[in-house]
C-alpha cells in the first residue's frame, strides 16, 4: 500500500468529516452551507486527482478492514467506478448550490439534518463506486438506503411516512431477500467476492459445478436484488421517493441512488459473471425482455402522470432500464452505451429535476397542466428544461445522443434487432411526455390571468412574491450549469468513451 492508495480513503472520509462539520455548524446556516460546498469541492478535486492514474490503466487498491477472514472491506478503483464517482461528486457541488436556494426559499425545516444525511449518502456512494468486492459494495449499498431514508421522509408528514415505508420496504426487502442470498451463494460457490475482470464464476460453470439453470437463478437474484436499479416490478420505491425535497430527488433519485443501482448491475455483470459467461449461457436474455418491458411501460406511465416530479420519476425508471439492457447485451458497444448513459442521463435528468423544483419554488406549480406559458415568466428555467429534455430523449446536440447511439449499436451487434425497435419506440415516447412541457411553456397562453409579466431572470432571491418570476439565483445558476453540461458532453464524450473502453 503506497501513499497513493491512501488517497482512496479520502473520498470516503471527506464527506463523513463534512457531515460532522455540518452538524457542528448547524446553528449558523451560512457557515453550514459553506461547509457543504467546501466538502463537495474538495471531494471532487480528490476524485479528479485519482482520475489520471485510472485513465493510465492503474488499479489502486486499499484494504480497510478484514471483516471476516477472506472477506475484507476493501476499496479498488476501476474505470466504471471512476466514472460514477466523477459524476456523483461533480453533481454534488451543483446540487449543493441548488439546495441552498431551494431549501431557504421553500422554508424547509431541519436543514442541518438534511445536509448531514446528504453528506453521508455521498460518502456511501463513493464507497459503492470504489468497492473492491461485492461485500463492500453491499455494505455501502445498505448504508445508502438507510442514510437516504431521513431525506425521503424529510417532510415528516403522513404521506412522507408512507413513502418511507415503501422506500425502505422495497430497497431493504429486495436487498435482503435476493441480493444477500445471491452474494452468500456466490461466496459459498467461489470462496471469494472480489471483482475481477472476466468474472469469478466462469470456471465453475465450465467445470459443471453449477448448472446453467442454477447460474441463471443466481443472476436473476442479483438483478432483482438490486432494487435501486428500479427494474419492474420493484420500481415502486422511486415514484414514492418523490415526496422528498427536490434536491434529493435531483441528486439522489436521478443520479446517486439509482445510478448506484445500475452501476451495481454493471459491476455484477462485468466483474462477477463476466460478459463472456453471459453471452455463452444466454442467462441474460430474458432479463433483457424485462428491461425492455420496463423501458416501455415506464415511458407509458410517465405520459399519464400530470405531477411533474412523478412524470420524471417514471421517466427515470424507464431510462435506468436502458442501462440494464446495455449491461445484458454484454458486448463492447452495449457496455459502453450503458456506462455512457449513466453520465448522460445523470446530467439530463438532474437538469429536469432542478427545473421542476424551480417551478415549484418560484411559481408554486407542481403539475404539468399548470405549466402552460411558464416560459414567459421563467425563460431561463424553461430553456434549461428544454435542453435537459432533449438530452434525455437523445437528440443532438446533447450528450444523450451518444449513449443511445452505442446502446442501439450494441443491440445491432448482438443481433437483437427487437431491442433497437424498443429503443426507437421509447425515444418517441420520451418526446411525447417531455417535449410538450417546454413547448407549451413557451408558446401556449398562461392558464391563469395576471401572470403576464415579461421580466426574465431577476436575480432577486425573494422568491415568494408574485411579481418575481425566476427561482432564486442559486437555483438558476445550478440548472444552467447542468444544462451547459448536457451540451458539453455532446462535444467531448471522448474521455468517457476511452475510460469505459478499457474494460471491454
Amino acid at each position, binding site marked *: 500500500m503506497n501513499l497513493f492508495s491512501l488517497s482512496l480513503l479520502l473520498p470516503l472520509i471527506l464527506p463523513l468529516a463534512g457531515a460532522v462539520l455540518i452538524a457542528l455548524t448547524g446553528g449558523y446556516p451560512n457557515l453550514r452551507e459553506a461547509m457543504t460546498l467546501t466538502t463537495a469541492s474538495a471531494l471532487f478535486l480528490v476524485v479528479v486527482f485519482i482520475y489520471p492514474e485510472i485513465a493510465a490503466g492503474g488499479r489502486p487498491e486499499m484494504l480497510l*478492514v*478484514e*471483516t*471476516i*477472514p477472506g472477506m475484507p*472491506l476493501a476499496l479498488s478503483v476501476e474505470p466504471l467506478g471512476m466514472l460514477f464517482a466523477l459524476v456523483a461528486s461533480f453533481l454534488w457541488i451543483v446540487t449543493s448550490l441548488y439546495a441552498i436556494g431551494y431549501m431557504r426559499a421553500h422554508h424547509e425545516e431541519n436543514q442541518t439534518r438534511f445536509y448531514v444525511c446528504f453528506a453521508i449518502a455521498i460518502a456511501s456512494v463513493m464507497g459503492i463506486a470504489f468497492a473492491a468486492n461485492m461485500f463492500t459494495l*453491499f*455494505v455501502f449499498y*445498505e*448504508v445508502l438506503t*438507510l442514510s437516504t431514508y431521513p431525506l425521503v*421522509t424529510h417532510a*415528516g408528514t403522513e404521506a*412522507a*411516512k408512507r413513502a*418511507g*415505508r415503501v422506500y*425502505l*420496504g422495497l430497497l*431493504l*426487502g429486495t436487498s*435482503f*431477500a435476493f441480493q*444477500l*442470498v445471491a452474494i*452468500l*451463494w456466490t*461466496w*459459498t460457490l467461489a470462496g471469494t467476492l472480489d471483482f475481477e475482470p472476466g468474472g469469478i464464476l466462469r470456471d465453475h460453470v465450465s467445470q459443471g459445478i453449477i448448472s446453467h439453470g442454477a447460474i441463471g437463478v443466481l443472476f436473476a437474484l442479483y438483478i432483482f436484488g438490486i432494487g435501486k436499479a428500479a427494474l419492474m416490478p420493484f420500481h415502486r420505491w422511486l415514484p414514492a421517493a418523490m415526496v422528498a425535497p427536490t434536491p434529493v430527488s435531483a441528486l439522489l433519485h436521478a443520479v446517486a441512488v439509482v445510478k448506484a443501482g445500475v452501476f451495481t448491475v454493471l459491476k455484477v455483470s462485468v466483474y462477477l459473471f463476466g460478459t463472456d459467461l453471459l453471452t455463452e449461457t444466454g442467462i441474460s436474455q430474458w432479463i433483457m425482455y424485462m428491461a425492455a418491458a420496463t423501458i416501455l411501460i415506464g415511458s407509458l406511465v410517465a405520459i399519464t402522470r400530470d405531477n411533474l416530479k412523478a412524470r420524471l420519476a417514471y421517466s427515470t425508471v424507464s431510462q435506468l432500464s436502458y442501462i440494464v439492457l446495455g449491461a445484458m447485451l454484454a458486448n463492447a458497444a452495449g457496455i459502453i452505451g450503458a456506462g455512457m448513459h449513466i453520465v448522460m442521463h445523470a446530467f439530463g435528468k438532474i437538469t429536469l429535476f432542478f427545473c421542476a423544483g424551480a417551478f415549484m419554488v418560484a411559481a408554486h406549480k407542481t403539475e404539468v397542466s399548470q405549466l402552460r406559458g411558464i416560459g414567459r415568466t421563467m425563460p431561463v428555467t424553461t430553456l434549461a428544461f428544454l435542453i435537459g429534455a432533449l438530452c434525455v430523449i437523445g437528440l443532438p446536440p446533447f450528450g444523450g445522443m451518444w449513449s443511445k447511439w452505442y446502446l442501439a449499436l450494441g443491440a445491432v451487434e448482438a443481433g437483437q434487432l427487437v431491442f433497437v425497435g424498443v429503443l426507437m419506440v421509447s425515444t418517441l415516447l420520451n418526446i411525447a411526455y417531455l417535449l410538450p412541457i417546454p413547448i407549451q411553456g413557451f408558446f401556449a397562453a398562461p392558464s391563469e390571468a395576471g401572470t403576464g409579466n415579461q421580466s426574465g431572470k431577476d436575480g432577486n432571491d425573494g422568491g415568494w412574491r408574485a411579481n418575481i418570476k425566476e427561482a432564486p439565483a442559486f437555483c438558476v445558476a445550478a440548472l444552467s450549469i447542468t444544462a451547459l453540461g448536457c451540451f458539453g458532453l455532446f462535444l467531448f464524450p471522448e474521455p468517457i468513451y476511452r475510460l469505459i473502453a478499457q474494460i471491454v
Partner: protein
Amino acid sequence: MIKEHLPVLQVIIPLIAAPVCMLAYRPKLAWLIATAVSWTAFIIASILLITVRETGTLSYALGGWAAPWGIEYRVDTISAFVLLIVAGISAVTILFARKSVEREIEPDRIYLFYTAWVLCLTGLLGIAITGDVFNLFVFLEISSLSTYALIAFGSDRRALIAAYRYLVMGTIGATFIVIGIGFLYAMTGTLNMLDLAERLPSVSNTRTIAVAFAFMTVGISLKVALFPLHAWLPNAYTYAPSAVSALLAGTASKVGVYILLRFLFTVFGGGFAFDTMVLNGILLVLALLAILSGPLIAVFQTNLKRMLAYSSVAQIGYTVLGVSLASITGLTASIVHLFNHALIKTVLFMALGAVFYRIGSVSITEINGLGRRMPWTMAAFVAGGLSLIGVPMTAGFISKWYLISASLEKGLWPVVVVIIIASLLAVVYVWRVVEAAYFQPAAEKSSTGVTDTVIKGREEAPLGMLIPIWALVAANIYFGLDASLTTGVARQAAETLLGGLSLTVWGG
C-alpha cells in the same frame, strides 16, 4: 502465582462479594461493590480468554483434588468466551443500573437487589467454568433463584406473577436436568464431564441413557426458552426492572445455550446426540418455529419490552438453528450469535430503560416524538434495531451471514428463506418504533402535566445511562466491521466442541 488461580477467582470473588454487598446496606456502597466485582470478573474473563487462545484449555482442580474425584474447573475456548460475554454484559449494565435502579426500586431494598445481582453473576459464571455436571446444576440453581428474586424487584405488581411463573417453569427445568444427571451418574459413577464423555459410549445404547438425554434436553430447553418452552420468558423480561431485563437478555439465555452445547457435544458427543437420538431434526424444526413465531408476535406488541422479549425468542431460535446444523460453520454461527445478540439486546433493553427512566412507560403509544426529546437514546435504539435486523456494518449482520452460509453449505434453502422472512419482519417491528418516535408529534401533555416547555426541550437520559448504552452501540458497530476476533474465537470454540482437544493442566 495468582494467575494460576484465576479460574477459581472468577467464581469465588462474586460469591464472597454477595454477602458483603448485603452487609453494606447503603445503596451506593452496594452498587460500588457490585460494580467492582463485575469489572474484576470482566478483567479475569478477558485474561482467561487470552490465555486459552494462546495455550489451549486450562484445567483447575478445586482444593487440589484431582479431576474425576474432585471438582474440576475447565476453561476451554467456548467457556472463556461465554465467561467474557457474561462478565462483560454485567460490567456494562451495572453502570447503567445505578440510575435506573434508583428510579425503579425503593431505596431500602436496593442493597438486596445488588446482592441478588452479584449472586446471579456468580451462578452464570460458575456454569460456564465448571467441568463437573453436578456443580453445574448447583450454579444453575444459584443463578435461577437469584434471577427469580431480581425479576420480582420489578415495580409493576405483575412482576411477582412473572417471577412466580418463571420459578415454576425454571424449577421443572432444573429438576429435569438433575434427574438426567442422576441417571448419568447411576450408569457411569462419575460426574466429571470428560470422564462422562469417556464412559458414556460403552453404555450409550441403554434406555437409561436415552431417558437421561431426553430429560436433560427438555430441561435445558426450558432454561434456554426454546420454542415451545418459552412461555415464561416474555412476562419475565417485560416486568423485570429495566437493568435486569438488559442483564438477563444478554447473559441468561446465552448461558442456557452454553449448557446445551456442553451436554450435546462434550458430554454426550455430537455423534450420539445427532445420529443416534436424531436431535438435530427436532432442534431444526423448533428453531425455525421460534424464528418465525417470535417476530410474528413481536409485531403486534404495544409494550416495547415485551416486543423485544418475543424478538429474543426468535434470536434463541437462530442460535439453536446453528447448533442443529451440526457443522463447523453452523456452530460458529451460533457462538458468534451468542456474543452479537448479547450486544444487541442489551443495548435495546438499556435504551428502553432510559426511556422508562424519563417518561415512566415503554408503551409504543407513549413514545411519540421521543426522537426529538431523547435524541441520543433513540438513536442508540435505532442503531441496536439495525443490528437486530442484521444490516451490514453491525454485529447482527455477521451472525446472519454465518447462519445463512451454514444453511447454504447444507443446501437447506427453505431455512434461508425463513431467515430472510424473519429478518424482514424484524424490520417491521423495529420500524414501528422508529415511526412512532420520529414521525408522530409529541403528546400534548407529559405525565408531569407540564406542557410545551418540557416537550419542546430535550429530556435526555442522564450521562450515566448514555455512556454504557453508547459503549455497546460502538461495540455493535466495531464487531460488525472487524469480526475477526469474534469469528476467530467462535470458530476455534466450534472446532474444539466438534473434536480435537488439547489440554494444559494447572494445579490448584
